[in-house]
Each structure stands twice: as C-alpha cells, then as structure tokens.
C-alpha cells in the first residue's frame, strides 16, 4: 500500500510543489484505503470516488502545466455530513434528511474548492450533531480506529476516525459543545474549535446557532492551522462572522510559545477525571515547564454551571432550528397522514432519533411561556458570567489548559442508555462554546491500553495562533508522535 496517506498535509503540500507525485496518485491511495477500511470503521457515509478522481485528473493537468497552485492544491479532505456540498446528500446523520440533496455549497466548502482541495466524501456523525459518541447516527455508529470496540467520540466522530485512520489528509467538523475536540482527543488527532464568528456558518446545518463553529480536524497543529487559515474570514452571508482580518499563515505559526504563561483551572480537577488522563496532562505540563513555560492555577468559578447552562441554551436554539423539518418541503415525509397536524407529528416522530427528540423537548420546555424567565433567561445571564470568568483568567495567562475529556474513549454501548453520563464527557469543552472562545485538542499520550489521551488548550477570542504554536511545541515533546493510528499498527 502506498505511504501517501500517512504524510501530513504540510508534507503533501511540499511534495506537490516539488512535483514528487500527482493529485491522482494521492487521491487513488486514499480511495483504496477507504475501500479497505471504511466498511469496518463506518467513518464515511458517502464516498465521492468518481468525483474525486475526475477532479484529481483536472488537477494533474494543472500541475503539469505549471503556474501557481492553490494553498490546498490536491489535498484530499473529508467533510462532516452537516455541511452542504452542492449536488450531494447532506443527511446530518438523520433519517429526516436522508433524501435531502444540498443545492448549494457551504461558504467554507466553496473556499476550499477554490483553493484546490479535493473532497473525498461525507463523514458520519451523531444525528444533527447531538451526541458524544457517533452512536446517535441513523446510519450506524463509527468505530474508533485505535480500538474498534470503542467509540470515536462525537459528534464529529466520522471525521475524527477518517483522519486518524488516514482515510483523508484532514477533515472538517463542527463543534457546538465539544464535537470537534472530544472526538479529536478520542482518535489521537488535532481538532480546533475556532473563535465564534471566525469561520462562516453559512451552509452548516444549524444545531445551536450561537454555539456552532466549523473547524479543522488534522494530524498536526500545523495542518490544523493551514486548514483553519483556508476557511477563516468574513462572509457577508453570515452576519455573525467577524470582519476582523485573518493573520497570515506565517503569523499563525510563528509565535514563540516558550514564554507563555499557562493557566490550569482548579475547578476542572474534580471527581471523574481518569488517573491516566490526569497523569498525562501533568507530565506534559512538567515537560513544558522544563522549556520555560510557566504554569499556574487559575479559577473559573462558574464552571459547575456550564453543563446545565449549555444544555438549556443549546437545546432551546435547537428546538427552533429543527422546526423546519416538517415533511412539507424536503427530506423525510411520513405517509398516510390525514391532516396537517398529523403530517407534522408522524414525520417528526419517525424522522428524528431519540436523542434529537429529547433535546427538542428540553428546548421547547425551556422557551415555553412561564418557564422562559426561569430557564432560558437565567441561563443566558449565567452564560455571560462564564465568559467573564475566562476574561478575568486571561488577564493573568496566555492560554488555559485542561484535559479534553475526563476519560479515554469508552466502549460502544457503554453510555448510550444513560444520557446524563454521556453529557459529562463534554464537561471540559462546552464552557468554551458558551464563551465563544477558541480551543484546540491535541494528542499528548496513549494509555496503557494504547488509547489516545487529548489535551485542550484554550485562548482568548481570535488568538488561535497561540493554540497552533503551543500545540506545535507540545508535538515536539511527544515521543513517539501521535498522528492518528501509527501506520505500522493494523486496523481491524
């Protein structure tokens, strides 16, 4: 088997510029690997084999002709099935959208296309991005490439597994409460949730609009930076996207993180944190201190409320965002309804899975007359306090660090019947979505069982460069490097 899929995105870029290989070779190598491994992993829901081959041939000619290559020339990417790619199915892991074909490109997809990227296919996810294990997909769970009996995390579990198993160079995910960072941690890759407003959400099927961000999932911090740089920036189609200029790629990777002061939130060291996870984090911090990085304790006092606030606000927005799936215009439609009301009821009863229904009910309740003040409004106030916690902490430190998840990847079926326990796998990640700040997970160690452990770095708004630079420094310290599944480790 070709070793091309095991390169990093950065290595692939320099290989193209030296004409060491052609896009067709790269794409073909990835498609072969997908063919071999996807049936077991179920990372991809759909593979654009023909489209990718056609596109690669066009790019081959471009490479032969010479001239400038786009920043993502010939890079094979996977796309979480929550993003619209014109002319292809966009299911969101739901029976509700199984027949839906997107008639337009998401803004980030358009940008990547323009920069030469090749899309290999759409990846599996928890239905409408609601979940932490990809077990909520209507199309079967995805398996963790490090251990097939375990979950890849979620909701961007398909993208994480595809990157980790080298079924693509990098992938797009979406993060509402940890849906990029948690699966990145579970699959031993890098996953970034950018600052809210940094990447256009146009074409991202909404779960919770004031939380959702699209972000890169890649093998290294540098790769994540490249993909981030390619999709970041203002979009007139998204009023919440920021007009602030995006730094150059050099600036994103050029900070000296050895002088950073890092904060360790004391509230995160609570019951439920796995010993191996804790040890891995503290060991990494000790190594960093050896390089001159300062580590100190910080306090984020409203942390205990984050999960409750997150579930009230995110489900409130979700209950409204998912109202459009009513069987009238597109997607799944129940047969044999005798009235309009029955059409709504039968369609939504059969089209949505249990977790989505649970969250719609929760959000509808929180917004209802008589409960709005006590739930939605109160939660919105606490949300502001949580942001203030971070603002205060960032007056003292350059970045805050924590484990990404309290535990290594759990077993398939282990938590699916217990939603509250499942919700706790997001406790270190969802506060950042409440605050709208950027955060990145990167692999720092493997447990005794060989399972990946992730560390989360958090930065002030629009300071993603701190994440990439500190991430790169940590990667240098991690020996052997973890970039998904090692290529000598068999899958299945």
């Amino acid at each position: 088997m070709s070793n091309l899929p095991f390169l990093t995105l950065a290595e692939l870029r320099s290989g193209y510029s030296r004409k060491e290989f052609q896009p067709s070779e790269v794409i073909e190598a990835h498609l072969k690997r997908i063919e071999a491994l996807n049936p077991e992993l179920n990372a991809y829901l759909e593979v654009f084999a023909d489209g990718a081959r056609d596109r690669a041939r066009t790019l081959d000619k471009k490479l032969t002709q010479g001239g400038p290559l786009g920043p993502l020339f010939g890079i094979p990417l996977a796309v979480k099935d929550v993003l619209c790619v014109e002319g292809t199915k966009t299911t969101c892991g739901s029976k509700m959208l199984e027949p839906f074909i997107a008639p337009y490109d998401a803004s980030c997809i358009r940008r990547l296309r323009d920069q030469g990227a090749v899309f290999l296919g759409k990846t599996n996810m928890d239905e409408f991005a609601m979940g932490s294990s990809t077990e909520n997909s209507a199309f079967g769970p995805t398996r963790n490439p490090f251990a097939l009996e375990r979950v890849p995390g979620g909701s961007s579990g398909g993208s994480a597994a595809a990157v980790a198993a080298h079924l693509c160079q990098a992938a797009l995910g979406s993060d509402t409460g940890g849906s990029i960072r948690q699966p990145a941690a579970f699959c031993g890759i890098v996953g970034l949730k950018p600052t809210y407003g940094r990447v256009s959400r146009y074409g991202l099927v909404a779960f919770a609009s004031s939380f959702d961000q699209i972000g890169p999932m890649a093998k290294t911090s540098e790769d994540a930076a490249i993909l981030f740089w390619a999709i970041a920036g203002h979009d007139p189609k998204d009023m919440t996207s920021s007009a602030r200029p995006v730094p150059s790629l050099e600036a994103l990777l050029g900070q000296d993180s050895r002088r950073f002061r890092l904060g360790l939130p004391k509230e995160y060291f609570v019951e439920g944190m796995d010993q191996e996870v804790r040890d891995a984090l503290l060991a990494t911090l000790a190594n960093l201190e050896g390089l001159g990085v300062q580590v100190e304790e910080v306090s984020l006092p409203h942390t205990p409320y984050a999960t409750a606030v997150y579930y009230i606000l995110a489900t409130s927005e979700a209950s409204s965002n998912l109202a459009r799936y009513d069987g009238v215009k597109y997607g799944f439609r129940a047969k044999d309804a005798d009235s309009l009301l029955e059409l709504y009821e039968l369609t939504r009863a059969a089209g949505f899975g249990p977790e989505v229904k649970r969250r719609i009910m929760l959000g509808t309740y929180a917004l209802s007359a008589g409960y709005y003040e006590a739930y939605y409004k109160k939660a919105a106030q606490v949300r502001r306090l949580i942001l203030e916690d971070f603002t205060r902490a960032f007056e003292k430190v350059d970045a805050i660090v924590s484990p990404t998840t309290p535990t290594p990847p759990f077993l398939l079926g282990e938590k699916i019947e217990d939603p509250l326990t499942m919700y706790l796998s997001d406790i270190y990640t969802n506060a950042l979505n409440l605050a709208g700040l950027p955060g990145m997970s990167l692999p720092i160690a493997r447990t005794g069982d060989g399972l990946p452990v992730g560390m989360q770095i958090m930065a002030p708004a629009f300071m993603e460069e701190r994440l990439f630079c500190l991430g790169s420094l940590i990667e240098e310290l991690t020996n052997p490097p973890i970039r998904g599944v090692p290529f000598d480790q068999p899958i299945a």
Partner: protein
Amino acid sequence: MAWETIIGLEVHVQLATRSKMFCACPNVFGAPPNTLTCPVCLGLPGVLPALNKQAVLFAIKTAKALDAQVHPCSLFARKNYFYPDLPKGYQISQYEQPLATAGKLRIETSGGTKTIGITRLHLEEDAGKLIHEAEFTRAGASYVDLNRTGVPLMEIVSEPEISTPEEAMAYLRALRELVRYLKVSDGNMEEGSLRCDANVSVRPEGSQTFGTKAELKNMNSIRFVGKALAYEVERQVRVLESGGKIAQETLLWSEKLEKTLPMRSKEEAHDYRYFPEPDILPLTIEGEWIEALPELPWDKRERFKQVYDLTDEESGILTEHPALAEFYEALVDAFPNPKAASNWILVELLKSFRPKMNRLDFFPAVSPKRVARVLSMVEEGVINQNTAKDLLARLLEEDFDPEAFVAQQGLGQISDEKALLAWIDELFERHPSQVNEYLDGKEKVFGFFVGQLMKMSQGKANPRLLNTLLKQKFDARKGAF
C-alpha cells in the same frame, strides 16, 4: 346603557425594498408561484439571514415621521410556530427591544382632529401564501407559494385609543398616505402590501376597566375594516346587553357573509416561544442612517392652504400623492395663478391620473411646463377654454409644443374686430326675424347669435370680444329706431 368602544390596530406594511429582507430575491408582486425563491427564503438546511439595510432605513424613516423614539440598539427575535407557509418553522421578528416605540399619528374625522398613540414599530419577515383550490385535481389539496416569504414587513401597533370605526378608517388612510409619502410602501390593501388586524372591545361609558377584546383579521380594504368593526361592536354590545360574555378569541371578517366568524379561541392560541434570534447580531442604529424626512402630508396640506389660498378639499386632493403635489407646484411656478391651476388640475387632469395614483411610482404623465403654456394662452386670450381642454387632452396622450401647434393649426382665437363684425353683419342679414325678436326684448335670442358666430369661426372667436361686438351692433340697431 351607553357603550364605549375601544379599538387598537396592528398594521403590517410591506416595505418597497428591491430585494427581500434576508436574501437577494427580488421583492415584487404577482410573479408565477415559487419563482422568486432561493435557499435562504426557502429555509433550506444551513442557510442564514443577511439583513437588508434598506428595510431598516425605511422603518427608521417611518418611525421618525410618526415622531417615535428610534432605539439605538434593537433586537431580532424568533417567533416559533408550525405552518406550511413558514418554511423555517419560525418567523424572524422583533419582540423585546423593537426598533421604535412611543410615536403618534394625527387623524382627521368628521368630528375633528385626534392624535392616536403608536405603541411600537418593528421589522419582521412576511410568510408565504397558501392556496386552497377546490378545482384542483385532488380535492382538498393545498398549495404553497413561497414568493412572498421573506418580504420585509414593518408592523405598526397603535395604542387602544381609537374610539369608532370611522376613526379606525381615518387612521388607516393617514398611515397609508404617510408610507406613500415616504416612498417606503405602496400601501395597497388589495394586494396585501398593507394589512390590518384590529383588537376591539366595548365597555359601559365611564368604566375604567377594559372589556374582553376580540381580535379581527381578514379585512382587505379600509372599507371592510369599517364594516367589520361596526359589525363587531354591535355584536359585542348585543351579547353584553343580553347578559352574555365576550369570549377572548380571534375572528375572521367574511365579506361575503358580512359578519365575523370565530377562527380560534384563547385556549388554542399559540405559545410562540420568542427568544433572541442568534443568527442576527443586535441591530445598532448609526447616526447617518437617520435621513432627513420629506415634507409630511399633513404639513404639505397646511402649507398649500396658506400659500396658495386653497380650500381644505382642494389642498386635500392635491396632496394625496407627493408626485401630484409636486406637479401642482411646478405648474404654479410656471403659471402663477394657484387657484386657476388647481381648478384646471381637478377638473381636467385628475381623472386621467386617478387610476395610477395608488402606485408608489405614479407620476403625472404630462409636463407641467406644457400645461402652464396652455393655461397662459387662455389667460392671454390667445385660445379659448374649449381649445385649451382639447390641448390638455392631447398633451396627456403625447408631448408637443402647444404654442407651435396652435399657430400651425390656426387654433388661435379670432380677435380681429373687422372679421368678427363682418360675420355679425352676415348673420343679421340671414336671420332678420331673430334680430327683430331680440330688439323686441327677447334677449334669450342673444345666445343663438353667439352659437352661430362660434360655428362660423369654427369655435375660435374670442368669446369676450364677440359678446361686446354683438352687443354694440344690437345697441346700434336699437338706436336706429
């Protein structure tokens, strides 16, 4: 018992922006169903709203004209409910912190002038249309047209300070005129660009508490609003006087049955679960967004009366449409006889303008300068009134130089005394008996001579001169006896 009526109106005004509220689809009426749509207004998965600045500017302008307070920061909200004409399952509207509050509108009724308070003015998007057609192949099928979905709407809510159906109609007329003046909407109730819901209740005169109110919908013209309110007030009084209770409900006006029919009760009312729209950042109004207002209709009306010495009725009609008022002022500019100018417009031109005067883009299809030339020729005695009427009618059809035309066609009045005297002599010779009749005191015959002379001059004789000369001739005959 004497009853007091309390009415509050909620008016939805479609804004005449070029594109829709949150997407680039054209905002036009009457296109084939579902041809003016895009992923955004169809509410497809993944789309986001991009606010139309023009709609905001139009709403600010209206709020300023209503003397309302425009808030420096306002919020959009989602109003959640399921209906097939609402593709997202929610309507983007404003709820807490609307664009403007606390305005007022002056109305004129037979009882005099009254000021009605405006509670709030906010922006929202229109829904689509459902068409239930019995003649379609599947009985009972409904069809959805989403062309109207996302058209910008401005909702203007009045205080419950309207006391009669007549006042309600006057309020709507004043509001319609205002939006036309501001050029923010054509205010056309038949096409639905201005829609009105009413809250009505009655209470014993002198009572301090409000009665239970009913909400009236489906009134498609100002006249229907008057009829529906009158019907509903009478119904409520009848119910209360017979010892019954008014139910809090929503009623539909049926023009066919000329009565209000129940649509839904309080128990069936929606819980709209309003919450701040996360896809639109809080709207911050910047100073330069507040434009200078044009002269408002009530101010123009007053000025016309003062400056041009017009009656209430004359100034009322001339200011009905800003373009007509502009035409009048241009005419007076070139023909400085305001009273005559007004008469000529009201009598000769208005009927051809009328059919198009309910459109925003109406303008009188005739040059005020040309009209002024025609009227000046009358005043100068070059042409007579009949010729002037003909010329104005022609000018409405096509543009030409009236003076050159009069000269070319020889339409000028004949003021040549010799020629007129020759015709008089000829006429006297042909009709000696009528001459004698006049001389015998039957002065009615005078008209016969004028008519004959006009005929002989092909209508061009200067009528004043003709009269004088004819009189002189008769007087000479009298003297001869």
